[in-house]
């Protein structure tokens, strides 16, 4: 796999010094991405998924941040890269789309000018009129009607869905190999969400665009992802293909996420199951498994942190961080025929 690897992340760790003390936002995240692959990173707020994504292109760099580990894009190291080398990667080789399209464009410049600016930052020889033509082409390709006129609109004249399309157009302006989409549909209406996902899926198919999709919405994951990384408290707790995660989830936290989805193929439950408790504070993570305080299956061994390992004989690429025996997990999560966090009957 590493021969054709596009992006290789090894033991990425991001710590911040805050007023409340040192916190480890990302604690040893590793994954590989091949060209054209869609990887979903899933987790609650504070799980470290956005920090992971932003660290890939150095957006978390600051005097208060300690970043360790390795991020290699086609073999070249980005963690150690100087600002100028990193600048050349941003936008040109890795495009990024953010959560809130309302605030992600600068309100005082026209949409077209902001797209052209991205092109000219990497290709200074591009004239303004060439940049403009390219911007119209891009807006058109992401489905903005009347792109030649709309290019001179200000961001507030676009609807939320159109802005997110324009963000995607801007991220693709220089034909990067990798798109990082940080909760690209969270701030949008459900119907618009579906359109944006369809657009991302089409781009992935047509341009062989590798995508890292950050989300807390497993419905979104099921639509587009090839592989899934589940994060909790700054660590990866489970990693596998889409089918492995959805049909044979190994970590009780993943069970909880899946159990709290509404399903069309089942009767509507009285109450939607939920994971009790709140995500842990990164300033005060529990010893051992960080999901332990919220996990109904906790036992003695959980006070030691389990490694991220393949525990299933027939699925070497499916990794998880849970001490329970695989057979035990299968029995427990099927209590009452439902994937969930119900403790077994005594």
């Amino acid at each position, binding site marked *: 796999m590493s021969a054709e690897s596009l992006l290789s992340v090894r033991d990425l760790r991001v710590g911040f010094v805050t007023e409340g003390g040192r916190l480890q936002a990302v604690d040893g995240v590793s994954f590989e991405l091949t060209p054209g692959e869609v990887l979903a990173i899933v987790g609650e707020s504070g799980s470290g998924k956005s920090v992971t994504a932003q660290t890939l292109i150095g957006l978390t760099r600051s005097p208060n941040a300690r970043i360790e580990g390795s991020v290699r894009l086609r073999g070249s190291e980005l963690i150690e890269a100087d600002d*100028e080398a990193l600048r050349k990667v941003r936008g040109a080789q890795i495009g990024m789309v953010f959560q809130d399209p309302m605030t*992600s464009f600068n309100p*005082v410049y026209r949409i077209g000018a902001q797209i052209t600016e991205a092109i000219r930052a990497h290709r200074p020889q591009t004239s303004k009129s060439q940049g403009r033509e390219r911007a119209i082409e891009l807006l058109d390709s992401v489905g903005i009607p009347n792109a030649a006129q709309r290019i001179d609109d200000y961001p507030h004249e676009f609807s939320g869905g159109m802005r997110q399309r324009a963000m995607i157009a801007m991220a693709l302006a220089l034909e990067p190999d990798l798109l990082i989409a940080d909760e690209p549909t969270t701030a949008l209406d459900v119907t618009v969400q579906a359109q944006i996902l369809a657009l991302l899926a089409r781009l992935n198919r047509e341009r062989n665009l590798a995508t890292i999709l950050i989300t807390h919405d497993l419905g979104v994951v099921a639509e587009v992802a090839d592989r899934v990384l589940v994060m909790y408290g700054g660590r990866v707790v489970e990693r596998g293909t889409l089918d492995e995660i959805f049909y044979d989830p190994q970590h009780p936290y993943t069970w909880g996420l899946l159990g709290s989805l509404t399903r069309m193929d089942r009767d509507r439950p009285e109450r939607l199951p939920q994971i009790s408790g709140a995500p842990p504070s990164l300033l005060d993570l529990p010893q051992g498994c960080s999901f332990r305080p919220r996990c109904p299956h906790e036992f003695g061994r959980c006070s030691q942190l389990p490694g991220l390992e393949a525990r299933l004989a027939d699925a070497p690429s499916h990794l998880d961080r849970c001490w329970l025996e695989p057979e035990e997990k299968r029995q427990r999560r099927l209590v009452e025929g439902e994937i969930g966090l119900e403790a077994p009957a005594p």
Partner: protein
Amino acid sequence: MGRFVVRRLFGTVFVLFAVSLLTFLIFNVVPNSDPAARMAGKNATPELIASINEEWGFNDSLPTQYVTMMKKIFTGDLISYEGREPVDERIVEGIPATISLCIGAAAIWMFFGILFGYLSAVRAGGWLDRTLTIVAVAGISMPVFWLAAILLNYLAYETGIFPSQGYTKLTENPLDWAYHLILPWVTLAILYLGFYSRVLRSSMLDVMNEDYVRTARAKGLSERRVMRKHVTRNSLIPIVTLFGLDFGALLGGAILIEKIFSLNGVGQYAEEALANFDLPPIMAITLYGAFFVVLFNSLVDIAYAYLDPRIRLGESAQ
């Protein structure tokens, strides 16, 4: 834009009317403000006072007196009680000095205020930021009259580097004009400079956390371009507001500075008129000052619409 201008014109007339009425009323209820008694002098006979009252129309009802005075202001026939000279001539004489003082000081404080604010924000938390913070807070804290006195003492009286007072017309001798104004410019600028740099610094630090700044970095812009194009322009909006209001108010007369450096501007005239309970110049200068405040308020709104395309002039906020 047309609707905006018309609305603002109506607003201006209303504000000026209200300001003039208030000034007039306050003057007439302040004790010891009886103009006839003051004009007649210390050992005046009742007959003299009565004849002054008759001659100047002080026996008329207050509304009549107000209307007469307003008419005279707009026809340029206003005569001061003290010295009995035409008020409009004194104001017109004072305007060049006041405007020279304001423009020069504004150029200094805007240039250094923005420069210091920018450097502070870019190097937030570093030694440069800390040093500039101390400079800014010192500038804000020093009273104008104190700073002026210190500068005058060391740079004018003791060393003779700069003249201690007076104003030379720009048209007469530009070098002498600037030479006489350097100390007043610096004194006035220091007062505002610190404040402006603090406002810009905090505004820039806010903007730096905006999502669109992260977007600008993510698309591969250089740090310098991110700061200049995406942070600074958006951060200047509060500075523009402040500047419009401060500059408009200053054009009405920088009373303390003009007095200390004897610039003979509008502010100094205002100080004289106030000290002598001289209503005609007080009314005229107040209206003149209020006019600039209102004018610059409108200019600020126009500048806003230019800086932020989300704002459209002439549309009411719904």
